[in-house]
């Protein structure tokens, strides 16, 4: 069965098509995850709005505790460059 981590990546990607999405399993239990999302769609959006966009795409899995914890990093391409230059 595909890991939740991969399914969460796909759901965020579908919700924010132009995003670069990376989901990391924080504890190896496939339910404490961190989503790192870089997208031009975040430009001009507050942190809360960005996080809400991402939460909305996996909301039912948060509500039913499939995803017990989801940490979020939501950057614009420019912030992403500044925060972790390749």
């Amino acid at each position, binding site marked *: 069965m595909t890991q939740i981590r991969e399914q969460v990546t796909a759901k965020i990607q579908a919700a924010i098509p132009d995003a670069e999405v990376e989901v990391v399993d924080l504890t190896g239990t496939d339910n404490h995850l961190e989503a790192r999302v870089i997208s031009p769609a975040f430009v001009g959006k507050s942190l809360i709005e960005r*996080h809400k966009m991402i939460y909305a795409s996996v909301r039912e899995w948060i509500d039913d505790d499939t995803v017990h914890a989801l*940490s979020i990093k939501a950057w614009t391409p420019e912030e992403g460059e500044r925060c972790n230059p390749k």
Partner: protein
Amino acid sequence: MQPEVKQRIDAQIRENPVLLYMKGTEMLPRCGFSAATVETLHTAGATGRIHAIDVLADPELWQAIREYSDWPTIPQLYIGGEFIGGCDITRELSESGELQTKIEAALETADAGAGE
């Protein structure tokens, strides 16, 4: 959401300059994200001024606050009546110094109000 619960939340937000809906208590957090948020608030100068509410002790409030803030997870932080966000946003605002500024402003307003 029951009107009575909504009024209770409105009052909690209005009356507390630094308000944290969390799992567990400030002294005994029962979730890593709640613990990290408490620590971030202490570092930002809110020690002794946090009004923490344990949603584990009040399941009805837990469901209501998720709907009220339109935010699916706990912890949830309010400063000066403004919804700030969860653990990640609190940490990011702390790193930029914005969290400290918001806390100082909210405490000043509250203390000034109390002094009248």
